[in-house]
């Protein structure tokens, strides 16, 4: 019980620490490093680059993003979508909003595929065709950018800079926040282009959630605990790591909630 609590508490602590650490730059930056979480690199406190913004610009430049893609691929192969569940500040915001009381809904499974055309069109194809400054890029509707950059700028200028672009961004932000309050991790599942990039790597990532199959009693607690609603028990029953799913954010809640997470000790009986 204490160990179950500590894993969940650790995740929340890591999320809060990431929120602070990722936005703590007093001047120095490491923006040559793409950190695959949704955090706008235009934030004055940002340390790292957002891969979405970098890919959009490279698409506009008609250049192949060797370093940016290499970094994202490297992290994805090593840990899959672990950063989504443990580090992404926008993921933390969604987790907190979902805890608000109110009606909750489950999105249909097909909505999880919307993020792939979002990635292809708004991150690669349209910036390639219409330059990186195009209105049709993800940066123009990014809710993290709206929260970290657009809103602070508007408050700083007494809303004198409020224009159509800002209005669109804020409208998208409000919809995403509302969605997060009624459906767990809805943005991660439906719209996040970083999630779309990392999702296929969940199937081969070196990081695995281990839940012993032989202990499974089909209690369904992991299903209820999963914030992404990706039915971990179906994979546990087949001795497949539960994080082998496109939308698993590798939060380890299924492992935390499992009443029998440890392999049963073999008992030796005398003949």
């Amino acid at each position, binding site marked *: 019980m204490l160990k179950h609590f500590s894993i969940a508490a650790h995740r929340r602590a890591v999320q809060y620490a990431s929120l602070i650490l990722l936005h703590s730059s007093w001047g120095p930056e490491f923006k040559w490093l793409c950190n695959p979480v949704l955090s706008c690199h235009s934030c004055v406190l940002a340390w790292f680059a957002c891969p979405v913004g970098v890919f959009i610009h490279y698409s506009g*430049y008609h250049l192949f993003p*060797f*370093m940016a893609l290499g970094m994202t691929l490297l992290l994805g*192969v090593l840990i899959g979508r672990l950063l989504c569940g443990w580090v992404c500040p926008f993921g933390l915001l969604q987790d907190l909003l979902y805890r608000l009381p109110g009606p909750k809904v489950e999105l249909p499974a097909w909505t999880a595929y919307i993020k792939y055309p979002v990635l292809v069109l708004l991150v690669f194809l349209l910036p390639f065709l219409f330059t*990186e400054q195009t209105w049709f890029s993800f940066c123009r509707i990014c809710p993290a950018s709206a929260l970290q950059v657009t809103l602070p700028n508007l408050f700083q200028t007494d809303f004198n800079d409020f224009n159509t672009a800002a209005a669109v961004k804020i409208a998208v932000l409000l919809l995403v926040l509302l969605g997060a309050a009624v459906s767990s991790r809805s943005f991660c599942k439906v719209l996040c282009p970083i999630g779309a990039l990392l999702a296929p790597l969940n199937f081969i990532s070196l990081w695995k959630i281990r839940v012993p199959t032989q202990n499974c009693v089909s209690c369904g607690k992991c299903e209820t605990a999963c914030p992404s609603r990706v039915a971990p028990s179906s994979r546990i029953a087949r001795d497949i790591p539960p994080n082998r799913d496109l939308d698993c954010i590798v939060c380890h809640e299924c492992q935390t909630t499992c009443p029998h997470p440890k392999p049963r000790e073999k008992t030796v009986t005398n003949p």
Partner: protein
Amino acid sequence: MTRTAKERIAAALLLVMALVLLLSGGMRSYKVYDRGGEEFGLLTFTPISDLDLVIDATFSGVERKGDRLYTTYDRSEPRGKRSCPT
């Protein structure tokens, strides 16, 4: 071949691909032409590494016009904190 073996092979291949991409990026450089920079009828440019281009991409420090990349700021000045207009 077991599922685990297939996963490991795929992971190893993608890991190699990631390292190749990083190495390739580390060896690449790009010509970024100066704004309005013409000396003796020749356009002046600065070669920048892929890492520097990633940094420039975070604040639209480079723009493409035609087939060339042009800098949008004075590279002789300290870069400082810059925000991306997108």
